[in-house]
């Protein structure tokens, strides 16, 4: 059983901690999953994020927020970072940070865009591109704790090369319903042509509104605006739609 987020003194949770990179793997052509060891990590809820601080030799420092990708696992924290080509931080994390190097983190942060193991209602996850990361943490926690909460995932991604967590999702045997939509190019022989998702896609992949699912929507602003707008239009109550946007 995964260690749940235990209440801690806020001072502990919000102090900057040194995080050492222990392993890294390629998640897609432009994304890497970075495994850190964070002594004193208090645990987290699925969907929460961390603040990452980088400091240069001359003392300049900057911060960014990243969703935690992993389920709670002691002092281990995984972040999946997509490279933004003109970004200040993400190319460093995806291309330069090597095993043994350190960054600083604090958190976890955010108590709204989270899924808790005691939730039993149906859940509809809608991910656009790298917006899958916090939703993947929910999928992983659900599996780790043996939850029977019915989960459905709609994952919209440009092309198969941009797909995250492909084999893990393909091999998942926890009863997760999943639908992939490709906006630019599809795998060979894929039944649905590439294109933006529609209200029909959204209805086919998810739960009807009268099942009262909690909907978690994460992706770019364009994706979130469209997906959340369509959910409301087909009858999902706005209070059951939680959104998080990247960039």
């Amino acid at each position, binding site marked *: 059983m995964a260690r749940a987020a235990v209440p801690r003194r806020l001072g502990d949770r*919000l102090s900057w901690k040194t995080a050492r990179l222990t392993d890294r793997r390629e998640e897609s052509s432009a994304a890497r999953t970075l495994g850190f060891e964070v002594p004193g990590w208090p645990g987290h809820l699925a969907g929460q994020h961390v603040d990452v601080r*980088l400091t*240069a030799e001359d003392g*300049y420092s900057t911060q960014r927020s990243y969703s935690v990708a992993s389920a709670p696992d002691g002092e281990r924290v995984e972040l999946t970072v997509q490279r933004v080509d003109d970004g200040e931080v993400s190319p460093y994390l995806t291309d330069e940070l*090597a095993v043994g190097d350190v960054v600083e983190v604090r958190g976890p942060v*955010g*108590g709204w865009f989270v899924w808790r193991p005691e939730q039993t209602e149906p859940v509809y996850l809608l991910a656009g591109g790298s917006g899958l990361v916090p939703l993947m943490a929910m999928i992983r926690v659900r599996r780790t704790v043996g939850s029977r909460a019915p989960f459905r995932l709609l994952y919209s991604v440009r092309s198969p090369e941009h797909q995250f967590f492909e084999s893990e999702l393909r091999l998942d045997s926890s009863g997760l319903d999943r639908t992939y939509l490709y906006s630019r190019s599809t795998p060979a022989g894929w039944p649905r042509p590439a294109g933006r998702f529609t209200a029909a896609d959204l209805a086919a992949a998810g739960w009807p509104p009268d099942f009262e699912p909690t909907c978690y929507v994460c992706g770019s602003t364009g994706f979130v605006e469209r997906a959340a707008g369509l959910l409301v239009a087909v009858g999902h109550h*706005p209070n059951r*739609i939680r959104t998080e946007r990247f960039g």
Partner: protein
Amino acid sequence: MSVVSRGFRGRARDARHTLPPGQYETHGFPVLSAGPTPRVDLDEWEFTVTTETGDRYSWDWAQLMALPSRTPTVDLHCVTKWSKFDTVWEGVSLDVLLEDVETAADHALVRSYGDYTTNLPLEDLLDGQAWIAYRFDGEALDPEHGGPARLLVPHLYFWKSAKWVRGIHLLGEDEPGFWESVGYHNYGDPWREQRYQGD
């Protein structure tokens, strides 16, 4: 003592603007909200100030437009780390809207279409510090940025500048709003880096 990340250089340092701690400059206009974007019809739009004794003061859209407006140029600081400098808005100062309101309250809870709330001391809404803004960069404010009208209170982190604003409750006791109830700082001064509870 902060920890140096080997090989990290960062961007060229910006000499033109002073950033609050932990912030970086963006030239885009990122969007952050917790749920779907509400669509508010101007014919039904209303802004209401409710006092601690239950008195109500309301304006419809035409009444708001008839009030004298200001065009503040302000810097925005979002708790998600971006800052945007020299943004130009148009809106009505809260000094105008609250001028005739009789109250002994010290606290304000701001409410939005879509049920978002945020709290702040009433004094932070006064004295030329806050506006009900309806134009950004010379254009009608987009719904995803809070249109038709949002609170603009730029000296605090931008989540305090409630989008789709519909009213303000003046209260004798402080009452935490939406983000303030899930771990974010009650006040949110970017210059003191008050991001989260305990900062």
